[in-house]
């Protein structure tokens, strides 16, 4: 099958790749661009480890065809830190010990970022709802919920 050319923006950089028809965005990101921050957990859209942000919306990269992403703006966790300074969410995850094995962490951070982009001052229920599509099997979720709430507070203090 002929390969399909796709162009998109990944964390602010222009990317151009050739992919086979039917390639998932997860596969394209990890094996073509070398961005391994989205993780392949279940490959069927239930664990959330592959979550990325496409044009501002949270998407499961394992269920997204790469060829549908031409012209889009894609953000992943590996693009969050700026000039070596961690994003407030990354800082909060570290400070709250919200990660153990770390496999769910990039997806959790993507889900949390979309939440905070739309809802800067979320309630605990908002955070629970936003994370409910992401599975973690180490932490018991509570440290992750606390980290997101802490990052939201840090953001609102910086904005004030």
């Amino acid at each position, binding site marked *: 099958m002929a390969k399909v050319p796709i162009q998109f923006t990944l964390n602010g950089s222009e990317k151009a790749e050739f992919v086979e028809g039917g390639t998932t965005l997860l596969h394209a990101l990890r094996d073509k661009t070398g961005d391994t921050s989205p993780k392949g957990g279940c490959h*069927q859209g*239930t664990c959330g480890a592959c979550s990325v942000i496409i044009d501002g919306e949270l998407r499961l990269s394992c269920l997204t065809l790469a060829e549908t992403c031409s012209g889009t703006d894609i953000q992943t966790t590996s693009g969050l830190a700026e000039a070596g300074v961690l994003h407030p969410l990354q800082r909060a995850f570290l400070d709250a*010990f919200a990660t153990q094995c770390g496999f769910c962490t990039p997806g959790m951070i993507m889900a949390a970022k979309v939440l905070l982009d739309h809802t800067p001052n979320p309630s605990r229920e908002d955070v629970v*709802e936003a994370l409910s599509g992401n599975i973690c099997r180490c*932490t*018991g979720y509570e440290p992750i919920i606390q980290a997101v709430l802490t990052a939201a507070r840090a953001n609102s203090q910086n904005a004030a």
Partner: protein
Amino acid sequence: MAIRRGRGVAAINYPTGMNLGGDPTQALVHSTPTGNFMVTLSSVDLGQGLKQIMAQICAETIGVPTDRVIIDTADTDTGPHCMGTFASRGTHRAGNAVIQAAKEARQVMLEVAAEELEVNASDLETDGEGNILVKGAPQKSISIFDVALSAHFKRGRSISGRGMFLIPRSYPEKETGAMKPSTCYAHACTVAEVEVDNETGEVTVLMVKNIFEIGRALNPKMVEQQLVGGSWMGISHALYETTEPYYPNRDHGGTDFNQYLMPGPGDLAQTEIIVLERPSADGPYGAKGPGEMCANPQIPAVANAVFDAIGVRIDTLPITPERILRALKAQAAN
């Protein structure tokens, strides 16, 4: 038909390590030419934080900052032997091995420093910040960086050490059957409060209060992290997790992790953690294994709370709505 509330309590003892053919872990420590310390292990870090703890233990023993220690857990084929990273044994077994290896390396380091400073090695001490000083005369000192350079390029010494920790196999006494199959018990107690819907059989864990006695907490924040996650896993064991709901029949079992239920972020009980530190005599700097034990007391506590709520004993895990409804039906029939 109503929502019933119940409260249950349970206490456990939990061992560190296991008793098959003996329970060994070995470690090797050596300095790099610039005075960093490499710890080679076959024990692995799978997110529980073993690398951090081993770095702390090595640093404490040698007398350097933790960031001067590098932990290599690269390969179980080529590394020093470890029985395995399970049974809550990592901190205790590998930690003791690292202490022994680091002590031997420290001794060589002090001997090289003694030659450089022209003093007796027994008169030297470390300041914990990367320097070796003469006791009582700290102006006479040498950096560990310079000691390592001297060892490598001038004195031809290897600043290194071997560590071995073995719990020998315990056999039962012929007459009594008494034996010591495990060591270094940690202790825990949980109080759980539940609501049981006696129409649907659904159990909601409202609250768990846990007290854990885990020896010395070598890294208190990481211990707390283990205990919070473990408490959640204990509730999960009690109410959710099974691969064979009709064991030994495989029907209706999950076929992958997507179908292996655990509580999600919306199902969390209010959780309280209290840590008691009673340093253990044979633990590395007093530590015990907090790993698996922290997920145990919630299970009997939840089962007891269910009994308190609806008056039936569920003796098969997990405590599913189906098992509760069947037990209530049997109770009504009697």
